[in-house]
């Protein structure tokens, strides 16, 4: 049974070896491959940490205990998981000669960081950057050219890969000090900025849509004013109804709505 150790008391190399970092990074990209409803990313986390374990001489008992430590429930934001994985590798390296990381210590570090980064990731990535990029892509698509959209996709992919590479190294370098990183005010500034960008870009797309509703009403056989009014109502409807439906249901509901409107406002109805 390994003993508890004071955080940061044991020595470990300041950086991850490049080969190990590449191997962990590649597996980090597939963190969610075996996502399941019971333990979520547990197997993904274990697979990410495996290159570190494989770099050591085989010891079935040590391997068994290592797997047991990381087979439990784990869930965090995939873009920020590098910080947690890097931190765990640092802790494991520090405790390598002292019988390995105690299970409780690994659990507390893993679970508390995973929760904090999941919450941060929800706000920054899922509610901030993802809609921002989606709407920026839509604005680029308004030009009618495909390549700017693909270019944006490639740039975002490259950017997030670079971010995840950096997160892994930063997590390892910080170890226990990663907790301090969570208090950085830049996270919250970035979240606020991304949400502001969402509002501006959504407004931009709405303005473009209204303009083309005015111009393109002939395409749907309605008067320009009526078509614009319908688009304004559609823009306001979710806020009035206050129900959050999946987009697929919005599209299907639109089919029914369109049928009614075409009869009411179209050439035969008007």
């Amino acid at each position, binding site marked *: 049974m390994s003993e508890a150790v004071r955080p940061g008391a044991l020595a470990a190399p300041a950086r991850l070896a490049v080969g190990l970092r590449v191997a962990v990074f590649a597996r980090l*990209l*597939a963190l*969610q*491959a*075996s*996502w399941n*409803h019971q*333990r979520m990313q547990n*197997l993904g986390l*274990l*697979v990410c940490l495996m290159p570190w374990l494989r770099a050591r001489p085989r010891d079935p*008992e040590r391997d*068994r205990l290592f*797997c047991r430590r990381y*087979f439990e429930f784990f869930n965090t934001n995939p873009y920020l998981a590098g910080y947690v994985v890097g931190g765990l590798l640092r802790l494991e390296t520090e405790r390598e000669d002292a019988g390995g990381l105690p299970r409780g210590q690994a659990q507390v570090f893993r679970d508390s960081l995973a929760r904090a980064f999941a919450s941060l990731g929800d706000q920054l990535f*899922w*509610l901030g950057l993802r*809609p921002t990029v*989606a*709407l920026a*892509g*839509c604005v680029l*698509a*308004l030009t*009618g050219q*495909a390549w700017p*959209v693909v270019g*944006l*996709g490639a740039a975002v992919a490259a950017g997030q890969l670079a971010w995840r590479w950096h997160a892994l190294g930063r997590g390892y370098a910080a170890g226990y000090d990663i907790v301090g990183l969570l208090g950085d005010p830049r996270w919250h500034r970035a979240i606020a900025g991304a949400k*502001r960008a*969402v509002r*501006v870009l*959504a*407004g931009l797309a*709405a*303005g473009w*849509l*209204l303009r*083309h509703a005015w*111009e*393109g009403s*002939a395409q*749907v056989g309605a008067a320009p004013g009526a*078509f614009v009014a*319908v688009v304004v109502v559609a*823009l306001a*409807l*979710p806020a009035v109804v*206050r129900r*959050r439906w*999946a*987009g697929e*249901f*919005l*599209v299907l509901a*639109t*089919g029914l*709505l*369109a049928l009614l409107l*075409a009869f009411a406002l179209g050439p035969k109805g008007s």
Partner: protein
Amino acid sequence: MTPVDLVAGVTGAHWALVGWLSLLAGLLALDETAFAQTWLSQPLAAATLAGLLCGHPELGLAVGLPLQLALVMNLPVGQSLTGEASVAAVAVVGGAVLAGSVPAALGGFHGAVGGAPAGAPAGDLALAGWLLLGAALLSLAGHPLVQAERRLHLVWMLQGRRTLRDGSLARVDRIHGRCLVATMLRGAVTGGAGVLAVAGLWVPAYGALPGAVGRALAWVPVLAAALGLGAVFERYGVARHWGWVGAGVVAGWVLGVLT
């Protein structure tokens, strides 16, 4: 084109295209959750890539733009539905190309409409609306498949408990790799089947629609996009941030004048 005509009439080049589209759908299914999670599996990027693969990027944009706007608030935060929007986007774009139908895009550049219902205005948005409905249905149909795959992951993951007894690291790697392959196969198979279903059933059904329905379909891309943007305003709030939203609306109107 009926399904029988489709299967009988497709050439080797068409089957090759179905194969490439299946591969793209498989890769995008991986990208959606299992691997990398870049932005390329979002509906707009997926449809655009499928359009480029088929040599019709404008079709990718015509389907992808309204689909992306409608689905922009499909976020993996507290969601209860896990559709397969990227696979659906690829299937709809590929199916339309295979059936020889290219719709008009939202707001301007016009394409030829193949087999439009009687009464639907030429060069209209009706086919885009029909394809959008098809994409939504295909995406919804993917939900039970995704859930079934996740239940399978659970079964496999629990097999990994044996490693806790014998310390076999290779077993864990194998299980994880099996999950990746399962996701890729699910995307590729549903993508290929979707392409054939759209080309053989969905697009031919468009030509048989009554004219009034065809006219109504032209509303779908615009209204779906507006409802999607409305969902953004609902979640992010307009009242407290009217300045930013208003600036965007004005800029968008000017952009609309210029484009």
